[in-house]
C-alpha cells in the first residue's frame, strides 16, 4: 500500500536563494514523522509546498500514490492536508470562533451562518486544552486580545477542526508552555490512533524523541536521511543535520566568575518592569558576554528592548554608574548602546534601501552638511569588508543579500559607532553555519576589546558555547543563573523548562 503522502525530489528557489534542492519524504496514516533540520535547511519551505502555499519548481507530491498538485492552500485542505502555521494565519479582528471556522462556517438552511452550532463546536475544541487556558477565553474573544500561546492553540484547533488526514505542526510548540505541550502530545496520540498522519517540525530534540515514530532530516535543502526513531539517537540526528558543527563550532574561553567580579559593572538593573517583564534585576561587567536563555517569548525580547529605550518601563537602571532612563532608542544609542533586533526584516533592515544606507542609518548625523558621502562610503565599505559581507556593491538593495549577510549589515551599522554595550536578540536565526562561525569569532574579539555583550539566543549550544554567564528567563522573570561549571546544555534545558538547576537566584 502506498504511503498516505509521498514527496518526491522537490526543489524551490526564491530569487537568489535555493531554499530546496532535492527534498523527499513519506508519511503513513497513524504515524508521526519528525521533519528536522537546522535553521534555513528548508523545513518551512517544504511544509509550505505540501500545504499548497508555495508552488514547487520541480518534483511531485503523491497522495495515496496518485500525483497531486495544489494550486492553493484551499486545494490542499480539500485533500485533507491541514497546517498549523509558524507565522500565524489568524485574522486579529475576528473572534476565536470566526477564525477557527473561517471558510467552513456551519450553515443553516438558507445559507446563514449557524452561530449557535459554531459556538458549541468551538467550545468543544477549546475544551481539548481545558485547564491550560485562561478562564475568560471564550469563542467570542477577539484574537487580538489573546496572548501568544493562546493564539498558537487557536491555530492548532483551527487546523484540527477540519479532521485532516495529514496534520502539519510547524514549530507549533515554540510559544507553548510545558503543560500545553504535554496536552498537545496527548492529543497527537489520540489523533494518531484515529489514523491521522502527522508531520512534526521542531527544534527541540526532547520533544521529537518523545513524540515521533520516524524522522526525515533536511540539510541545505536536501533530504539527507530518514528512518525509524527507535533505530537512531539524538546525537546521530544532530550529526545528520549539521555534520560540521557536531562537537561545536563555538570555542570561546569563558571568564571565570571570580575574574568577572573584579571588573567594572557596566549595566545594573533593578526591578525592571514592562507590560511583559515582572521585575528583573541583573548586572553586567565590562567585556562580559552575558547570555539570556529560556524558552521563546519569556520576556527576553522585552528586556533587551527596555534597556535600549524601545519600550516604556519602570524600575532603576544605571549605565557606568550613572542612572539612566532611555525613552527613545536614540538616547541609548548616544550612550553607546546598540541593539540587533530579533526580527531582521521587520525591525532591523530597510529592505528596499541600499546596503550603504542600511549601514549608515544611525550615523548620518556624523557626516555634516552637506553629507560627506565619500567619507561615509569609505566607512561603510570598511565595515562591510571587515565583516566580509558578500555583496554586488554597496548600492545594491539590502533585500538582495542572504540571511547571514543581511544580519552582518544589521550588526555592521552598530559597529560603525563602536558601541560599548551590544544587545543581540537571537542574531543567528536563519544564518548559515559558516557565517555563524565568523560571527562567533567577531563576538569573541569584541569582548576582548572591552565591549560588553548581552546575547539572547534560541540556540542552546550557541548560548552555552559563547556566554560567560547565562540568565534563564521564565514568565517575565529571571528564574535562574548559570555560571562556571553549572553552565551546561543539560542545566540550561532543565532551567528553561522550569526544573530547578544551577544557582537559583
Amino acid at each position, binding site marked *: 500500500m502506498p504511503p498516505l503522502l509521498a514527496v518526491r525530489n522537490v526543489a524551490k528557489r526564491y530569487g537568489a536563494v535555493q531554499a530546496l534542492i532535492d527534498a523527499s519524504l513519506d508519511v503513513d496514516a497513524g504515524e508521526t514523522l519528525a521533519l528536522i533540520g537546522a535553521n534555513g535547511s528548508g523545513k518551512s519551505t517544504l511544509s509550505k509546498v505540501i500545504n499548497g502555499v508555495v508552488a514547487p519548481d520541480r518534483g511531485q507530491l503523491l497522495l495515496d500514490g496518485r500525483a497531486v498538485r495544489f494550486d492553493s*492552500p484551499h486545494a490542499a485542505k480539500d485533500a485533507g492536508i491541514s497546517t498549523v502555521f509558524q507565522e500565524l494565519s489568524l485574522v486579529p*479582528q475576528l473572534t476565536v470562533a470566526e477564525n477557527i471556522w*473561517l471558510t467552513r462556517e456551519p450553515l443553516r438552511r438558507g445559507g446563514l451562518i449557524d452561530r449557535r452550532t459554531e459556538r458549541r463546536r468551538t467550545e468543544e475544541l477549546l475544551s481539548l486544552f481545558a485547564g491550560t487556558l485562561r478562564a475568560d477565553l471564550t469563542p467570542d474573544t477577539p484574537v487580538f486580545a489573546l496572548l501568544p500561546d493562546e493564539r498558537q492553540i487557536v491555530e492548532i484547533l483551527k487546523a484540527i477542526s477540519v479532521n485532516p488526514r495529514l496534520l502539519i505542526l510547524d514549530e507549533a510548540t515554540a510559544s507553548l508552555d510545558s503543560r500545553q505541550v504535554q496536552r498537545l502530545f496527548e492529543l497527537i496520540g489520540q489523533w494518531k490512533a484515529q489514523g491521522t498522519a502527522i508531520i512534526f517540525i521542531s527544534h527541540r530534540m526532547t520533544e521529537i524523541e518523545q513524540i515521533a515514530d520516524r524522522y526525515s532530516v533536511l540539510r541545505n535543502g536536501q533530504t539527507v536521511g530518514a528512518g525509524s526513531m527507535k533505530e537512531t539517537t539524538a546525537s546521530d540526528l544532530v550529526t545528520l543535520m549539521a555534520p560540521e558543527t557536531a562537537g561545536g563550532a563555538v570555542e570561546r574561553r569563558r571568564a571565570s566568575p571570580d575574574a568577572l567580579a573584579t571588573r567594572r559593572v557596566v549595566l545594573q538593573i533593578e526591578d525592571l518592569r514592562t507590560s511583559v517583564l515582572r521585575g528583573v534585576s541583573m548586572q553586567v561587567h565590562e567585556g562580559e558576554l552575558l547570555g539570556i536563555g529560556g524558552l521563546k517569548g519569556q520576556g527576553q525580547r522585552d528586556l533587551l528592548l527596555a534597556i535600549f529605550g524601545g519600550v516604556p518601563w519602570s524600575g532603576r537602571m544605571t549605565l557606568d554608574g550613572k542612572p539612566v532612563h532611555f525613552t527613545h532608542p536614540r538616547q541609548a544609542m548616544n550612550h553607546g548602546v546598540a541593539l540587533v533586533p530579533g526580527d531582521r526584516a521587520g525591525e532591523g533592515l530597510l529592505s528596499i534601501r541600499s546596503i550603504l544606507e542600511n549601514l549608515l542609518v544611525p550615523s548620518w548625523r556624523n557626516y555634516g552638511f552637506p553629507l560627506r558621502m565619500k567619507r561615509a562610503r569609505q566607512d561603510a565599505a570598511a565595515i562591510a569588508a571587515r565583516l566580509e559581507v558578500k555583496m554586488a556593491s554597496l548600492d545594491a538593495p539590502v533585500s538582495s543579500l542572504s540571511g547571514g549577510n543581511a544580519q552582518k549589515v544589521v550588526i555592521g551599522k552598530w559597529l560603525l559607532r563602536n558601541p560599548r554595550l551590544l544587545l543581540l536578540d537571537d542574531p543567528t536565526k536563519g544564518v548559515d553555519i559558516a557565517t555563524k562561525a565568523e560571527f562567533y569569532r567577531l563576538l569573541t574579539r569584541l569582548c576582548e576589546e572591552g565591549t560588553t555583550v548581552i546575547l539572547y539566543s534560541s540556540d542552546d549550544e550557541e548560548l552555552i558555547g559563547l556566554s560567560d554567564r547565562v540568565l534563564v528567563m521564565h514568565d517575565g522573570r529571571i528564574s535562574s543563573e548559570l555560571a562556571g561549571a553549572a553552565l551546561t546544555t543539560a542545566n540550561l534545558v532543565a532551567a528553561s523548562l522550569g526544573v530547578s538547576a544551577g544557582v537559583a537566584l
Partner: protein
Amino acid sequence: MKQSRWQQATYRHPYLFALLLLVAAFIANALLQPNLLEPTTLNRNMRVFLPLILVAVGQAIVMIGGGIDISVGSIVSVVNAILATQIGLSGDLSTAGVMMGVALLVGMGAGALNGLFIAYLRLQPIITTFATSFIYAGLALFILPNPGGGAPSRLTAFYRETIILWLPLAFYVIALILLIWAVVRRTRYGRYLYAVGGKADAAYETGVPVRAVQFSTYVISGLMAALGGIAMTLLTGSGNAQVGDPLTLSSITAAVIGGTPLSGGAGGVAGPIMGAIILGLIRNIISFANVATWWQTFVNAAIIVLALAMPGIINLVRRRTR
C-alpha cells in the same frame, strides 16, 4: 497586549462613538430647531442626507475590506448626468425606470473597473480610484457639459414628499439597508469581508477568495454610489455634472466618524449611516445657530476635524493617565 475597556467596547460596538455624537448633535439640533421631530421637518432633513448615507455605506464596505474608493463622487455625477439627460423634466415613468436600471449597471460597471485594477492587477486603491475618478468625472461632463435636464416632478415629488406612518422615505431606505446588512453579516461573505480587510495574507492562507472579495467591495460601492446618484437626482430634480464631487470626501469622513478605520477589517454599516446624519446635523446646527455666513464652512470643518480626532485624543489621554 492588554486591551482597555474603551478598546473592547469600541471593538464590540464600532458605532459607539458615532452614537454618542449623534445623540449630542441631535439634542443640539432639536434645541435650535424645536420642530425637528415633526414629520415634514424630519423629511426635509432626511431627504437631503440620504444621498450621502447611501454613498457612505458603499464606502464603508470598501474600507472594511481594506480599501478605499475615491471615485464614488464621480460615479454619482455620472449617474446624475445620465438620468438628467435621458429622462428629462418631461420624461415618462417607464423611461425613468429603464434609465435608473441603466444607472445602476453603470455604477456597478464603474466599480467593477476599479475592482479589476485593484484586486486583480494589484494596483493601490487610493491612486487607482483617484485616476478612475478623473475618467468618470470626465464622462459625466461629456454626457452633460452644461447643467441642465432633470427629472419629472411626479418622480421628484415621490422622493421628496413620501411619508409613510409619520416616517419619511429615507427611514425605510435605511431600515432596508440595515436589514440587508444584518443578513449579509451572517453569511460567509460577511465573514470573508472582515477577514480580507483584517489580514489578507491570513485569509488567503485559510482559503478565502481574497481577490474576489476585494473586487466585490468595489462593485458594491459602485452600486451604492449609483443609488446615491439616483437619490441626488430626485432630490435636486436637475442635472449637474459636478454634483457628486463633495460626496467623495464626505463619505470617507462619515465612514471614519462611524467607526470604520482606514486600516480595514473593522466597523460596520450602522456607524457610517450615523456618521452621514451627523455631518448633516452639524451643518443644520451651524445654520440655525446664526453663525455668520462666512464662518460657517470653517466652524463646520473644525467640528468635523475634532470629531475625527476625538478617538485619538481619548486614547492619548487614557495612555497618559494610566
